[in-house]
């Protein structure tokens, strides 16, 4: 059934079919072990931290651990784990199929190339969200479970625990959306994944040093604005110091602006990717 002349029902069916096919390929063939390792590294770190506490009997305090969690989340999980995880997942959505010379399979289907881009993006997003969202949840559990159920219950229900957890999960999902759209596009433009990865890594790292307008053309700018807990070591420092520039937004966006800004940035990147795929030719010999 079409609405307003556009075959939405057909597109929805096609996207679901692409999702089914891609999810199978993603989890059976495409994902390297290193992506799971990146996602689970902080979980292992917190589990070890808790294990040491249990062995030594030296208990940390909730506030301190909340700050540790915030630091690891911002400096490692967002900037490295999700970043490189999305490189592995999204950059290969098209590039991987060009390399193994099976891209023509989709190009022979009566399918709008834009629908293909959305289907592939959603399949990557689902995989990334599943892996990194689960990791965020497990990190939370691993970090706080040593405090005992009563303390954790108090923190979750009467404190800000539930709010923080929801915010971290939301930021994780938005990070997957943002970096996913960036690396989907990069995979279409570059043959060598190393070049865009390094360029984008540097661009995201120097985000704090850039003029205000340029800061907004990055994913980390919006994610930093949405992180629920600041990093005291960074905020306490001189605003011009390196750590403060990396971790703190000099002009943070409001949550609504940050979410909309990130989604808009991703949408623009997906539109550009669609244009690129629409113009794409099958020439395996050149690759």
């Amino acid at each position, binding site marked *: 059934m079409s609405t307003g002349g556009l075959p939405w029902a057909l597109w929805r069916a096609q996207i679901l079919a692409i999702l089914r096919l891609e999810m199978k390929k993603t989890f059976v063939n495409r994902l390297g072990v290193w992506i799971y390792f990146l996602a689970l590294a902080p979980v292992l770190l917190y589990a070890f931290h808790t294990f040491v506490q249990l062995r030594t009997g030296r208990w940390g305090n909730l506030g301190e651990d909340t700050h540790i969690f915030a630091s690891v989340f911002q400096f490692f999980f967002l900037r490295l784990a999700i970043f490189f995880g999305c490189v592995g997942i999204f950059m290969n959505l098209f590039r991987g199929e060009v390399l193994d010379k099976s891209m023509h399979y989709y190009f022979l289907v009566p399918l*709008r190339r834009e629908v293909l881009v959305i289907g592939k993006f959603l399949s990557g997003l689902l995989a990334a969200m599943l892996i990194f969202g689960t990791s965020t949840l497990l990190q939370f559990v691993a970090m706080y479970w040593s405090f005992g159920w009563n303390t954790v219950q108090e923190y979750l229900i009467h404190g800000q625990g539930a709010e923080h957890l929801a915010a971290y999960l939301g930021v994780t999902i938005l990070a997957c959306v943002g970096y996913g759209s960036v690396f989907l596009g990069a995979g279409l433009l570059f043959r060598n994944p190393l070049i865009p990865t390094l360029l984008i890594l540097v661009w995201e790292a120097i985000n704090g040093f850039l003029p205000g307008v340029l800061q907004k053309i990055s994913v980390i700018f919006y994610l930093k604005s949405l992180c629920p807990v600041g990093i005291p070591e960074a905020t306490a420092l001189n605003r011009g110091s390196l750590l403060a520039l990396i971790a703190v937004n000099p002009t943070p966006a409001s949550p609504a602006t940050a979410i909309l800004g990130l989604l808009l940035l991703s949408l623009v990147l997906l539109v550009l990717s669609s244009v690129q795929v629409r113009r794409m030719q099958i020439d395996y010999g050149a690759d």
Partner: protein
Amino acid sequence: MNGQEAGQRIVFEDVSKFYGEVLGVNRVNLSIPAGITSLVGPNGSGKTTLMNLMTGLVRPTRGRITVLGISPDEPERLFQKVGYCTQFDSFPKGLTGYQFLYSYLRVSGRPHLAADRLAGQAIEQVNLVEAAHRRIAGYSKGMRQRIKLAQALCHQPSALVLDEPLNGLDPLIRAETIALFRTLAQEGLHVIISSHVLHEVDAVSDQVVLLSNGYVVAEGQIHGVREEIHEQPMQILIRCNKPGDLASQVFQQDCVVEARIHPDGQGLLVKTRDAGRFYLLLNRIAQGGINIESVAPADDDVLSVYEYLIGTEEPTK
């Protein structure tokens, strides 16, 4: 050509394709009707480029293409009507033959039941029922070729574009596949076949497009193409009871260039520059007592035409 006519043909208008500085095809003008059309030429002559152009897998550097009235820039419309069996021998990983077709149909937007039914039909058409639920990775070359053919067929298109479709098939399956092409062409489909093996397409083609180094050197029905090659005398084989007598009579005629008795002694091979005049002459001779059993052109097959036009670049026989 009016719009309605163009809507029933595959049309190339002054199409060129360059890969950087390398020529793919140059200044191609074609209008391909329904039936079996063979693209013939040696490797690198531009056959696959023409097929990739008409299916939108590559874009022309210059010129315009329409397939049954649809631009190849609109895959969502084009592949409703076109099926393409490519030469690429790679498949999405982990799929069985059935899943390969079923997923293709599902991504096309077909509901489960229709996809299941059409996939099953296509698998039967290419005689791959027993291997349908085995992984493609374990298929032989011939089986991979057949499952690609099934993919091109499964959505019941109006035009089939088949790049070297008989490669890797054993003789029995090859004969069945050729019969399938004939049936589809009789049903009114456009069946475009590329081949560098001349005898393979000679017998099945309604029309041929001969390619060399990216240029179309001849196109049309093979007999018509042969008649256009005036500089090469036509060869005619006459089966008769007295080839020696016939030779003495025809040799005096100025339209006959050469007359040789066939090695089996049961016929005469004549080379003539004016087939029309020669046939009239033959009618008169037949009334004079020589029993003529059959008269047939001996060099209006694709191979002969190809040799006349392109000479040493003849494809594999």
